[in-house]
């Protein structure tokens, strides 16, 4: 390992040092106690809001303990301690080991071999990293080292692309990519030019930096800056600045969740032009997650003496495209400047400054696009090659190039710190801020959209703007311009460091007070909010933990049923494990297409493995036991009409809630009047309410049921829109009884089969109440005609998103009651389950798991027992129970 060659320029953190700022503030112990208290608060805030992943929560606890130890160490041990702590976390975190695991090990609850097995991915990660670092330091020419690293990279990439070869270490690839793909380039560059000191602890600390293991998109830290800013300001000032950054990161992450959960990000739900503006804005603001993560990471590094500069600087207030490029992800910009832009420019400068600069800019953006795709490969296992990505980088490159050429050929006036710009200049800044924001926002939406159709739908929604909506948008832009004038021109830090002047005037106690107060509020907010029992409680609940929003849930559902790639189910899912190969294959083998609006049906008498479990169907094409077509004398028969959750995707045949309820009804202790109870499951994955109703009419009534359980749920609105759009686009044949209603519906909404699906769905959305009313009225009417008692059952989703479900449920059940139908609302059946206990079958598949089915069965059985015990003639009951509602809770009390 090379020894330091410029030690004088790069100080280690001086652990005993209390900088001049601290001395002036009156001693170190009080300051340190304040820092420890704030850090503890921030760890608690991360815990209560469940920020990022559970691994991050554990890493924060270790970092907190490590920070206290680090502070009291002699200066010469600090870097080594940080490197060792980082390695420890890298080895343990991928296997889910934390302080709790250590406690379990000591208490003998966790065997040593289990610990060793769970450390395997981390050990492989560290071993591969050590080999790569070793190659950088081989005593051979730079070209040979680069060649060896390329060979290593190709070998690792082949293994990455074939993740099934080594499933035990699948978790390490995104982390290995984030630690080494770009940092090796910077490291080699600085090693070659000797711009910084090199030693084993420095290298380990640089590559395995403590929080990196939780963040596949860890900021690209410049090695020279990493060394140069190590101990570059008084420790306590650095701590306090770090706490400030961490809190800022937390606020960004919470704002991201707010935007993600509540912005109108589903194009099919855009009801107005303001919704469309909200969609454009919300899509852009989703970037808050990245800036939040980066602030959090850099803040945490401050606690160990690495006083790195800011990673983002008020990028929403950029006043030009070059300004935007310099403010957003500053470390990345400096990385490509250092390794691509400057070398390219200096190599081509003989062709003239402007020409060399233009070519270097183009090369820099090509490199940026290619490297992003390469980074994507390490995270997802496949290169990112989409028209959206190419368009985004190409257009941004052109805009930045034009801007750069303007700056190169004409003077752009700068100001020294403290100078006040003239009014005209300020107004100009405001206008440019608005123009840049709008252009970047639009570009960002092109980058993020899932298809061109989405953009067409947004344009369709924007087209109908009212005068009031235009006024609101203009008012928002004026506010943005004023913000740009007021705050947009503040100095940013570069990856080279913060201005020396700024470092000497840090208001420790003022920052400590604001961090403490904000952290206390954030810590107390979930508890205070949840006790209020208001809409605010729902909002706060939705912000705790990372849950998919309605759009991504819908997209995941579409991926499942419409044979799209589930693995591209939205930005929010990139960090979650992907579905294993073949996960959906059984589901596809289980169905056959139909040419009518039922669209598909379950094959009779098959047994396949779907979503990890065996699925068997009976001769009638039901996922159920065998039954006679004729209802046996003395028995009571119920037909169940639902979609995939009721079908039982992801659970065994005997675990579906429908089968469990049937078993319990037949239990002698149930005290019900009939000898035998049969529940026939006519559910089909992906069926909308219209399809469920038609299935009842086509197959259900022929089975002579006494009761029809019509299962509804929160996603029924999306199911209905998707199905209706499909009917139109695929020109599916309609039964005579349905055709007049559906044709009139399509005419009223102004939709045609040639339109994009998303546009059809958006225009049909306003017609949903009409659709559900028609379905419920027809259900009531047809059941009465066939002497069947209809019961509408509301099934809650397993992702415990009460905040999102409640309004839909109220709308849906209100319409059912208005149609004179009895309602069984199961929505409280998951209430006692802790939020961190999964009720879904897998992280990549949101179907209800076995426990969820058991809870659904408990609630449905309780409600049905009451309903069936009191039932006389089914047709009479259906008519007389127009306003009845059967509640499982009420039933429990009654019994």
């Amino acid at each position, binding site marked *: 390992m090379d020894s330091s060659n410029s030690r004088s320029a790069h100080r280690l953190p001086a652990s005993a040092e209390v900088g001049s700022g601290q001395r002036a503030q009156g001693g170190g112990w009080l300051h340190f106690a304040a820092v420890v208290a704030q850090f503890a608060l921030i760890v608690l805030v991360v815990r209560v809001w469940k920020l990022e992943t559970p691994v991050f929560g554990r890493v924060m606890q270790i970092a907190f303990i490590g920070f206290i130890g680090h502070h009291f160490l002699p200066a010469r041990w600090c870097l080594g301690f940080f490197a060792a702590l980082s390695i420890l976390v890298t080895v343990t975190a991928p296997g889910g080991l934390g302080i709790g695991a250590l406690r379990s090990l000591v208490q003998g609850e966790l065997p040593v071999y289990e610990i060793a097995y769970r450390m395997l991915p981390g050990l492989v990660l560290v071993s591969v990293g050590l080999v790569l670092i070793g190659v950088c330091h081989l005593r051979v020419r730079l070209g040979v080292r680069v060649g060896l690293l390329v060979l290593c990279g190709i070998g690792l990439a082949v293994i990455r692309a074939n993740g099934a070869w080594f499933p035990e270490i699948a978790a390490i690839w995104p982390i290995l990519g984030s630690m080494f793909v770009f940092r090796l380039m910077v490291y080699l*560059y600085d090693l070659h030019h000797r711009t910084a000191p090199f030693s084993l602890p420095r290298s380990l600390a640089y590559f395995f930096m403590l929080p990196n293991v939780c963040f596949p998109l860890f900021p690209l830290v410049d090695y020279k800056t990493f060394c140069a800013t190590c101990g570059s300001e008084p420790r306590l000032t650095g701590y306090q600045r770090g706490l400030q950054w961490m809190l800022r990161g937390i606020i960004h992450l919470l704002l991201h969740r707010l935007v993600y959960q509540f912005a109108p990000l589903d194009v099919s739900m855009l009801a107005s032009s303001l919704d469309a503006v909200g969609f454009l804005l919300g899509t852009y603001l989703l970037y808050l997650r990245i800036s939040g993560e980066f602030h959090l990471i850099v803040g945490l590094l401050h606690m160990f003496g690495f006083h790195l500069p800011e990673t983002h600087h008020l990028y929403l207030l950029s006043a030009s495209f070059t300004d935007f490029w310099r403010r957003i992800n500053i470390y990345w910009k400096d990385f490509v400047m250092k390794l691509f832009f400057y070398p390219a420019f*200096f190599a081509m400068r003989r062709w003239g400054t402007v020409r060399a600069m233009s070519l270097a800019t183009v090369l820099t953006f090509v490199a940026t696009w290619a490297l992003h795709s390469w980074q994507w490969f390490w995270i997802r296992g496949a290169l990112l090659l989409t028209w959206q990505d190419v368009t985004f980088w190409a257009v941004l490159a052109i805009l930045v190039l034009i801007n750069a050429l303007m700056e*190169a050929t004409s003077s752009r*006036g700068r100001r*020294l710190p403290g100078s006040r710009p003239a009014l005209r200049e300020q107004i100009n800044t405001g206008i440019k801020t608005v123009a840049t924001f709008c252009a970047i926002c639009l570009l960002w939406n092109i980058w993020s959209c899932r298809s061109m159709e989405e953009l067409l739908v947004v344009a369709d929604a924007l087209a109908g703007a009212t005068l009031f909506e235009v006024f609101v948008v203009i008012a928002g832009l004026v506010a943005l311009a004023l913000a740009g004038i007021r705050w947009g021109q503040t100095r940013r830090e570069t990856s*080279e460091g913060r201005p*020396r002047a700024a470092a000497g005037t840090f208001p420790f106690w003022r920052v400590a007070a604001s961090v403490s107060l904000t952290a206390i509020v954030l810590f107390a907010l979930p508890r205070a909010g949840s006790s209020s029992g208001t809409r605010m409680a729902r909002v706060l609940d939705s912000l705790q933990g990372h849950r998919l929003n309605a759009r991504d849930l819908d997209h995941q559902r579409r991926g499942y049923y419409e044979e799209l790639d589930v693995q591209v189910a939205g930005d929010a899912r990139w960090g979650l494990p992907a579905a294993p190969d073949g996960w959906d294959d059984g589901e596809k083998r289980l169905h056959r297409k139909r040419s009518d609006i039922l669209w598909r049906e379950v094959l009779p008498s098959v047994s396949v493995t779907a979503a990890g479990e065996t699925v068997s169907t009976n001769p009638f094409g039901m996922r159920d036991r065998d039954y006679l077509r004729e209802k046996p004398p003395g028995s009571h028969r119920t037909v169940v009409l639902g979609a995939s959750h009721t079908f039982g995707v992801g659970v065994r045949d005997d675990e579906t809630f429908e089968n469990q309820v049937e078993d319990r009804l037949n239990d002698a202790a149930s005290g019900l009047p009939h000898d035998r109870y049969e529940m026939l499951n006519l559910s089909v994955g992906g069926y909308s309410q219209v399809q469920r109703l038609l299935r009842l009419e086509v197959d259900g009534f022929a089975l002579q049921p006494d009761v029809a359980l019509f299962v509804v749920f929160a996603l029924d609105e999306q199911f209905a829109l998707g199905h209706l759009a499909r009917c139109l686009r695929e020109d599916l044949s309609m039964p005579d009884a349905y055709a007049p209603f559906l044709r009139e519906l399509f005419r009223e909404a102004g939709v045609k089969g040639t339109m994009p699906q998303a546009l059809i769905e958006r225009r049909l959305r306003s017609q949903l109440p009409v659709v559900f009313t028609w379905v419920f009225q027809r259900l009531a009417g047809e059941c009465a005609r066939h002497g069947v008692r209809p019961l509408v059952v509301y099934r809650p989703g397993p992702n415990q998103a009460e905040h999102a479900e409640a309004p839909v449920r109220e709308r849906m059940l209100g319409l059912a009651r208005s149609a004179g139908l009895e309602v069984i609302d199961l929505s409280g059946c998951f209430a006692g389950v802790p939020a961190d206990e999964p009720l879904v079958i897998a992280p990549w598949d949101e179907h209800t798991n076995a426990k969820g089915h058991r809870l659904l069965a408990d609630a449905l059985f309780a409600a049905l027992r009451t309903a069936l015990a009191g039932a006389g003639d089914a047709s009479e009951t259906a008519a007389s129970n127009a306003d009845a509602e059967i509640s499982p809770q009420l039933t429990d009390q009654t019994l």
Partner: protein
Amino acid sequence: MNEANIKSAIKTHILNEFLPGEAPASLTDTTELATTGILDSISTLKLVAFLESHFSITIEAHEARVENLNTLSDITALVLSKLGPQ
């Protein structure tokens, strides 16, 4: 060319090119240019082009960094190191 002349030439160029309207006295030897954003990537290249043509020196890509270009003094020192002993 002595240090004062070099510094003066650089200062004049920076004031004219990047800080039009600023009082010459406001730009001191220790005024930070790179870390305050006055010298960004484009202006750094323009400054390098000026230094190379005005002082007939060659600056390498890895030398276009903050330690060499952050203040008037840093830039002057870089030029002096390139010019060698007079």
